[in-house]
């Protein structure tokens, strides 16, 4: 079966090719959907080829682990709500980082065993050792080159950080954890932990392959991932997840080098580079620098000064709101995270269609970071069937607000907060916002006085031309629909 390794190699090559082509397609809206399928085929080919590798043991265990892992992830990924996508990405990404760290650990442990068992106990023959030897059955492991050892350790470090960091990100987004965790001297402690982890890594790379060092190395690495992520505010999580995504890619590439597997090297490196760039693009879209996201005082400032705003929120009834919009010429609808939570997109689109039938010019205005992930609102509106040409980007619609009669803000908060422009002490100061305050009238749908992701007050809700329509997003949209229908009959 001398052709078998070549065939497996060819499969890996095909997989790498399909990954790249798949990612290429995913980065263009027209072809995005096919891209994931291409990449999926590549993955299938690579996994099947690996099963066919000639010198594999524990095939039953491998199959079991694969089936369990796939089943669990498939099930959870299928049933999770669209709004929970970011934390699921964090979770799966953490798993990948964990796997990479695990590979690194397995390599290191294998070499410890060889160093302590293999050489001294074979000759002279000592029957009392045969049992342990048979038990250990240590096969001849080729020693790792210094480069491989170094990269393996580095990959393990990065993978472990990505693992624990992603889990924290998951827990935060899932609401399992208080959003911020800050203590004095935090940065110094973090730096120290990282330094210690690196020191242990260097020891390992230098050949000190002893169990306590390995253990300390992994504990420190995991701890650092934890500590690094804890102080970061929830609003920055997508950026952080993207960063850990790039981390995992790098970890996979480095472990791929250790295993001599080019498909892993290439896929990992492509993701590492793509993820790094994507992280920067995301941070830019949220008007933050990466350094600011990781070490900034975003969360801290928000916790401090909770500004009081003069005036009161003025409520409005659904019937009045419906009438206002029914007789308006131009209406803009600004959806936000609340629409996603309430799953109100279908009702909102029903309402918009009724307005359009009445001759009202309706547009949807989408802020790039509305919701909890980039493109969140586009996805939801697309799901509800809103045609593309009614959806406007922030840059396109901002100049139109002064000519707009009514803006219906539904579940959005931070992305329409004028304090991002007026208040330099605000944690979101400098973020570009949808200029809805420039419109003639603003109607805001939300459940109560809850703050948005940044956890701050919003001057818009107290403005003279703003009316609050309290209630759950879906219920309120439903009311608007029925009031509008009542108008016509």
């Amino acid at each position: 079966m001398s052709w078998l390794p070549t065939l497996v190699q060819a499969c890996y090559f095909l997989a790498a090719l399909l990954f790249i082509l798949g990612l290429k397609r995913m980065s263009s809206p027209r072809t995005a959907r096919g891209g994931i399928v291409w990449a999926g085929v590549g993955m299938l080919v690579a996994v099947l080829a690996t099963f066919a590798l000639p010198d594999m043991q524990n095939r039953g265990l491998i199959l079991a682990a694969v089936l369990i892992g796939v089943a669990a992830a498939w099930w959870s990924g299928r049933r999770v709500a669209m709004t929970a996508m970011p934390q699921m990405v964090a979770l799966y990404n953490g798993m990948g980082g964990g796997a990479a760290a695990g590979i690194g650990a397995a390599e290191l442990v294998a070499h410890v065993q060889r160093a302590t068992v293999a050489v001294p106990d074979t000759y002279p023959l000592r029957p009392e050792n045969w049992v342990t030897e048979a038990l250990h059955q240590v096969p001849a492991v080729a020693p790792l080159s210094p480069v491989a050892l170094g990269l393996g350790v580095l990959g393990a470090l990065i993978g472990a950080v990505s693992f624990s960091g992603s889990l924290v990100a998951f827990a935060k987004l899932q609401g399992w954890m208080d959003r911020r965790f800050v203590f004095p001297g935090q940065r110094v402690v973090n730096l120290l932990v990282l330094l210690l982890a690196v020191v242990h890594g260097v020891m390992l790379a230098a050949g000190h392959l002893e169990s306590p060092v390995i253990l300390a190395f992994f504990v420190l690495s995991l701890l650092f991932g934890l500590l690094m992520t804890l102080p970061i505010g929830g609003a920055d999580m997508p950026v952080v997840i993207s960063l850990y995504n790039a981390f995992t890619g790098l970890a996979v590439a480095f472990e791929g080098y250790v295993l001599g597997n080019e498909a892993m090297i290439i896929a990992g490196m492509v993701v590492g580079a793509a993820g790094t760039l994507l992280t920067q693009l995301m941070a830019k879209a949220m008007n933050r620098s990466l350094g600011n996201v990781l070490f900034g005082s975003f969360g801290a400032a928000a916790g401090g000064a909770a500004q009081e705003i003069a005036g009161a929120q003025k409520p409005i009834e659904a019937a009045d709101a419906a009438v206002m919009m029914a007789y308006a010429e131009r209406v803009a609808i600004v959806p936000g995270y609340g629409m996603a939570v309430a799953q109100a997109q279908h009702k909102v689109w029903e309402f918009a269609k009724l307005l359009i039938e009445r001759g009202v010019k309706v547009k949807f205005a989408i802020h790039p970071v509305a919701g909890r992930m980039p493109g969140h609102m586009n996805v939801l509106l697309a799901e509800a069937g809103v045609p593309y040409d009614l959806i406007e980007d922030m840059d396109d619609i901002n100049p139109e607000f002064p000519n707009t009669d009514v803006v219906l803000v539904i579940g959005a908060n931070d992305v329409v907060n004028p304090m991002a422009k007026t208040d330099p002490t605000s944690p979101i100061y400098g973020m570009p916002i949808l200029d809805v305050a420039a419109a003639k009238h603003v109607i805001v749908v939300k459940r109560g006085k809850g703050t948005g992701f940044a956890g701050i007050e919003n001057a818009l809700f107290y403005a003279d031309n703003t009316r609050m329509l309290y209630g759950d997003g879906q219920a309120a949209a439903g009311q608007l629909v029925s009031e509008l229908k009542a108008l016509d009959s």
Partner: protein
Amino acid sequence: MIDGFVALYIFMLAAFTGHEIIARVPVILHTPLMSGSNFVHGIVLVGAMIALGHASTPFEIGLGFVAVLLGAGNAAGGYVVTERMLEMFKPSAGKPGDKA
């Protein structure tokens, strides 16, 4: 095992490829693309399978088993989530003339 410089070339070229692919992606694709690249590094599953396939002591086997479990989760979960997100783009992409 591939030698140092060749590996360096592969690292460099793969990095360029990844960078260039993402270079001009629209904001609305950021999340699906993050998820898609998350799926792609699910190839770590292959590495984990190799690690478990070469493990001999119980400890190594346990480690390998967990690694395979995690890697499989990364790959399968990444696929499902990405597929679901991109599914959403179907209706709008279906009407190419619609874009204003």
